[in-house]
């Protein structure tokens, strides 16, 4: 079975690396980018099945990027999971009202992340990786 492709949009390279190690271990094909431009480009090149999007990207509104990704032909079918930190009420409201499919709070455990990824892919009808 073809492994599922996951795009990670995260500006912290260490976090990116950890997510990559964790998800690769479960058979996912990983792509990591650090900003919105790279994300759009990468998703056009290889459409992902799921996108992990950091809420606190520098110089970028993650909620707005999420909306844009949901409109892009290459990514509109992909599940978007917002990776958040401790949220203020205003931020929480924005996240809840966003077009994201799920949210995971940082710092997350590998199993916690894997469970959410699995759930999102299940909802899409695409089972998890290997």
């Amino acid at each position, binding site marked *: 079975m073809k492994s599922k492709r996951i795009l990670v949009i995260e500006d912290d390279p260490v*976090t990116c690396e*950890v997510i990559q*190690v964790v998800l690769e271990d479960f058979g996912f094909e990983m792509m990591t980018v650090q900003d919105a431009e790279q994300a759009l480009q990468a998703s056009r090149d290889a459409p992902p099945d799921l996108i992990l999007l950091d809420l606190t990207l520098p110089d970028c509104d993650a909620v707005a990027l999420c909306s844009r990704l949901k409109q892009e032909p290459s990514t509109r079918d992909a599940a978007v999971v917002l990776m958040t930190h401790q949220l203020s009420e205003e931020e929480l409201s924005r996240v809840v009202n966003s077009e994201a499919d799920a949210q995971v709070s940082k*710092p997350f455990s590998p*199993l916690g992340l894997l*469970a*959410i990824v699995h759930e999102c892919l299940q909802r899409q009808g695409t089972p998890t990786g290997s």
Partner: protein
Amino acid sequence: MRGTEQKTTLELKLEKLRSICEKSPDNAIGLLALAETAFRRGLRLEALEAYQKVLKDESVAEAHLCMAQMYRHHGLYQEAISELRTLFEMEPGYPEAHVFARELARDTVLPQDIEEILLAGCGNDELALARVRLSIARSLVLREGQELVAIQDANAGDPTFGYYICETRKRLTYCEEVLSQLAVLEEARRAYLADLDRQRQIERERQRAAEQPAAAVAVASQPEPEHETTSPLGGSSEQYTVAAAESGFFSEEGQVESQPVSAEAVVEQAVQGEALDVNAHPAETVEVEPTQLEHAHIEPAQVEPVHGEPLQVEPVQEEIVQEEMVQALPVELELEAKPPVSEEVNQTAGALWDDPPVYVLPSQETGPELATVQDEMQVDLTLHLTPTLEGSLPDPDQPGGLWEDGPVARYEETPPPSLDLGIPVTPAYYDSGLGDDLAHPLVEETFVEPEPQPVVEAPVAAVPVARNFSEIYAPLLAGLDGLIQTLAKTRSVSSVFLLNREGYAIAEQVKDSIGRDRLSEFIVETVSFLEAFATAPQYWVLECAGGIVVIQSVDSYHYLITIGQTGANFGALRYTMDRVRPNFEQVLQPACPA
């Protein structure tokens, strides 16, 4: 060291995460990943350190759960409860924590606040997510086990993997147990919700009953449905009635205390307008006599059923109730009647105490065998002195005797019988037969002292010649090297030495700066000292911040010393040492002194 191709995916992942965390020691996500991976690998210490770092700044439910599990593993139940409490403050419906808390309740009494949380149970979404998490964990553990088995097959005879396979099997079993416990949690949740609904319904009915006292009688006549559910702590085996438990109806022994309810009491309560505590009554029909109703000035016709539809009451399973009752009955220990142990037996056999030495008190009623032994052991204290100089000694009563200074005692004219003292005595006149010229001159009778002989030191007892160890052990080295290498494969083990009691290093695998000379001194000086504490120990473990030193006696003459760095898996090390010890013993048998 095993090559990359001989490492499992988990081990490779662990190495990657270690490398990441070395570069960024404060990255919480990296630390969490490292901790979880190490925990799954059985490296609890490494996991604990990583979790502690994370929990300094963050609060993560999974980290608290793992900490609680580790505390429980070491018997630190209060610390485990503390972690659990913190976790439940964050996520009261965390299913894995509920399962763990039930396990913890077998070891210790849980505080009331945690019991209440357990009673509330977990939500369906939480349970669904937990099932996904556990399924993922299970599949990861399963893969780890499969990889280990494959590697073990490729390295036949290497016992190192046996430990990890056993540990992996345990973790797999645990995953499956927790998964199966989720069904119990689900059932408990359903029962809890059903009970809440029932409580609300009863509350509504109470309010209505308070408004319509007569109607309350009908409420009381409704049998109380009993729902069997699982105890929040005891799993499916401990079933009880929710309503009774909720209303505090469990006595200390766990028996449901049924209070006798009379129809008069119900009516009186209803007349007085008190809210009926329906819950407090056992499920039985209260028959109201018409006379009582008249007494209450209530027309029977006014009594209307509160419920539009009769309640569907599930029959209470009598067997279960009976079983509960049986379980709840105070247990009477049936001790096997044994004859009282006589004092004499105690004293003789030392059976009741381990430490005091066995001793035998003399008994007047000793049997013939013991009497014989006693006869033989009697010591004849009569001194049979041979008379020697007794007769020639001065009378002690005479002045000048040996005991007093005074005039010299007079000796008898008659010389005492000659005493052959072995000293040559030259007679006063000696005829040599050689003529007068050459004859010895007359000399007075004197004692001639023997010529002093030069003192010759007694020959020193033969000192045991040091055994030629290199010759003794040479034919054994081939077998020993393989065994030493097996031990050295254990992760974080830096050196392994095999020495004999006299400090001779027979074989070694050294990856650090500790030389064999130092170890030789160490074993000579340490073993006898340590043996003063324990005569036949299997292990001595010296632990310090830098690592551990494990001394294991192979036999009464040979010792294995294993040195591990920080993070060395002592469990794995011990397992491997236990496995290879008989092999060492067998190989070393010819070199073992009688």
